[in-house]
């Protein structure tokens, strides 16, 4: 089930909210777990068993690990940690990467091993990483053992962040899992945040995504330079507003249930360097890799050579995490390379240059990275890049480009504005200014209320329209 759908908004969400708030305190986690399982089973009626199995297994690993630690047997504790990591990585590897591996082995050795053809279980990359954070943090002594499988299950399967993150580390929510206090102010903040995310997804990401689908569907050899740039710009907006909208909705839903998740995006497109970009984009993933891969490997403490290798591994894995395909590997390594260059000298140079150069440079390379990201076939990547750099014998600009630019001009401007913190700054300032004046404050609140309802209505209109197909069968 996706958040931006009528079944979720008007059936699942109101029901889970009502049941959750009616349930007594000691059953609240059970309610969340139950509904999260329903939520997951809705899209994955079979793979839900896989997730449950993974929760049960790791719950048990956790108990054993904890007992070993209590018995002061660090060897045993380490053994259980390794068992758990091997278990989780194998599960992810099997369901996500087996076919990728088979295809490559086949190509390399000319063999014909049959592909498994298993569909990817939704969210497996997210929940596996969350589970691993539990076992590793437990081993490190950062969190207590979870003695309630319901609490652990609720943490892993929690529907707000189950499908598209953010990757919540257990130590950030361990306290809330045991005892949390929902409040009207959190709930209201959650509503604002959720509706903002919903609007970003439906009104922004989907709308600009339609432009990208249209341009992407055209053969790259026929794209004018401008069209190619417009297309990938549209995709850049789409992926940011889509992904960050999911995080917004997750954070908002979390607040409604009394959880506080960490921010996952921080206006990445205003970054001043690629290094800065990765501090602002999908923060929970970068932190996860830093904490559970980069630092355990030695980080920067074992000399420059080792640090480069460590970073290489992290970016290789980051690329692969995004999908079992070579273009994602290339995408990860592309960033590895850029980050290396920045570390070597570029960051220092950028600091001396006017700020806008850094911003332009960053955006340029991020936008180009999305070309690698969005085409799985290498030949598609190169031909699209060729179109962007005018190497495909097409005019610099044509009517396709002019049409899409004019037709989406106001949308593009809104997206550009919404990619910056300006709207948020404006909102916070206005709110702070009005707070002390009762009438102004109430008016401001009324306006906010009206805009939230208006956004909901508008989002709903777009959702209803998606299922509207007039005269679909008319011609057949």
């Amino acid at each position, binding site marked *: 089930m996706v958040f931006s759908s009528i079944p979720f*908004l008007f059936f699942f969400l109101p029901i889970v909210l009502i049941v959750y708030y009616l349930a007594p305190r000691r059953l609240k986690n059970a309610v969340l777990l139950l509904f999260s399982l329903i939520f997951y089973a809705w899209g994955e009626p079979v793979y839900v068993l896989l997730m449950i199995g993974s929760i049960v297994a790791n719950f048990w690993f956790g108990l054993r690990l904890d007992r070993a630690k209590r018995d002061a047997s660090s060897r045993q504790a380490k053994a259980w940690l390794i068992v758990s990591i091997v278990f989780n990585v194998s599960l992810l590897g099997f369901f996500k990467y087996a076919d990728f591996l088979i295809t490559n082995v086949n190509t390399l050795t000319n063999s014909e091993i049959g592909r498994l053809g298993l569909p990817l279980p939704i969210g497996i990359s997210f929940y596996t990483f969350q589970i691993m954070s539990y076992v590793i943090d437990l081993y490190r002594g950062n969190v207590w053992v979870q003695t309630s499988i319901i609490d652990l299950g609720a943490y892993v399967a929690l529907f707000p962040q189950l499908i598209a993150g953010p990757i919540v580390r257990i130590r950030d929510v361990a306290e809330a899992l045991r005892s949390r206090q929902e409040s*009207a102010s959190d709930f209201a903040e959650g509503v604002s945040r959720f509706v903002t995310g919903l609007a970003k997804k439906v009104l922004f990401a989907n709308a600009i995504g339609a432009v990208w689908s249209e341009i992407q569907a055209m053969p790259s050899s026929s794209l004018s330079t401008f069209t190619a740039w417009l297309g990938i710009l549209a995709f850049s907006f789409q992926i940011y507003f889509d992904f960050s909208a999911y995080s917004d909705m997750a954070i908002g839903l979390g607040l409604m249930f009394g959880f506080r998740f960490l921010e996952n995006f921080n206006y990445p497109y205003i970054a001043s360097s690629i290094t800065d970009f990765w501090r602002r984009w999908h923060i929970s993933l970068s932190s996860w890799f830093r904490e559970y891969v980069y630092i355990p490997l030695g980080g920067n403490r074992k000399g420059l050579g080792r640090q480069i290798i460590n970073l290489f591994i992290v970016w290789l894995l980051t690329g692969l995490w995004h999908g079992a395909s070579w273009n994602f590997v290339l995408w990860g390594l592309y960033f590895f390379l850029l980050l290396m260059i920045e570390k070597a000298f570029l960051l220092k140079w950028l600091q001396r240059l006017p700020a806008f150069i850094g911003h332009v440079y960053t955006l340029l390379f991020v936008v180009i990275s999305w070309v690698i990201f969005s085409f799985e076939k290498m030949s598609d990547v190169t031909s699209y890049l060729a179109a962007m750099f005018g190497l495909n014998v097409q005019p610099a600009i044509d009517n396709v480009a002019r049409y899409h630019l004019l037709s989406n001009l106001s949308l593009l401007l809104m997206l550009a504005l919404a990619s910056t913190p300006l709207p948020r700054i404006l909102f916070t300032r206005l709110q702070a200014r009005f707070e002390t004046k009762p009438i102004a404050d109430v008016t401001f609140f009324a306006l906010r209320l009206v805009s939230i*309802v208006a956004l909901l209505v508008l989002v709903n209109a777009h959702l209803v*329209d998606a299922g509207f197909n*007039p005269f679909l069968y*008319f011609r057949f």
Partner: protein
Amino acid sequence: MDKRKHIQHKILSLVFVLFLLTAIIWHLVTPDSDFSETEKRPLETFTLPEIKNLVSGRFMTSFERYADDQFPLRPFFVGLKSASEKVIGKFDNGRVWFGNDGYLIEKKTTPPDLSTHANHLFEFGVKLNKQSPETKRYLMIAPTASSMIPDVLPPFTPAIDQEAILADFYRRAGDYHVIDLKDALSTDEAHRFFYRNDHHWTTEGAKVAYENFCFAAGLEPVQDLQTSEISDRFLGTTYAKAALFSPRPDTISIYRPAEGDDPNEKVRIIDDKGSLLRTGIYAWEQLESADPYLVFMGENAGYLKLQTSADTGRSLLLIKDSYANAVIPFLTHHYETIHVIDLRYFTGDLMTLMKDERPIQDTLILYNFVTFSEDKNLYRLLR
């Protein structure tokens, strides 16, 4: 101040939950409808889950469609979406271009490949020529509004170059008398050849096609016809797709003899089983339906035989889509029998039919560019 904040938080939370609840309750108390007139399709209704459907996920898919299809005030929301796109200056809503002067034009941007179509027609021509060399073969693929009246399209619209594609297609389609309408339909007064709210041509457009056909077939167009309006609130397919709130309806007209009875009212329409479907070419009741264009010829059918009062002894085999429906009332003045074939529904054997119905002096293949390029049934010509 804290108290005020607290109340505000409560109100905000409550409004949100109430919004969700209103929709669900509204949804549940309004009776479900089985069929959508605007969409011409059955709507999903609620079915109880079974274990089998739950495991396969079919129940979930069905429920999602049900929740979408039966959502309260669906037309309003669809209209709101379109309106919001128009307000922010979008030139289309994904289905329809918002043209100037109220024109709503089907959005098509991918140039079709007509090579298979050309092959089918080529083979059909050869086959027909072998079986009945005396039958003349006419081919008319009408360009549509996006190509004929491009001035109504939004700026820089990358519409398909229908004329170029057609020119190439005609070269490869074989031995036909091609009736190319591109000049006749793109004159200064071409606006009145196309509806604002429908993808069809108007009766004026159909008349132009008819006159061009007459010219090619050596017939004398009927002169003493005069136009009369039969509907002034026609909102057709592109209107339904545009879903805008402020309609600018079209009028539907038909041509009748200036004096005396309309022979079209006496045309006998016979279905594929040989029984009389109705007398009179116009299906008047369709004027009130969701698709009033159906007033011409009524519901689509694979095969219809028209027996007219034109005492000419000539018969015509018409292989067509709905564009032809507005042309037929003109053709009835010249042919005593018209065999109307709609390949989408036609399941018979064309060659046998032609043998049985001999002599057939003329065949006319008449489609519009869009339906023709999307048609996947031309192979039926060769059965």
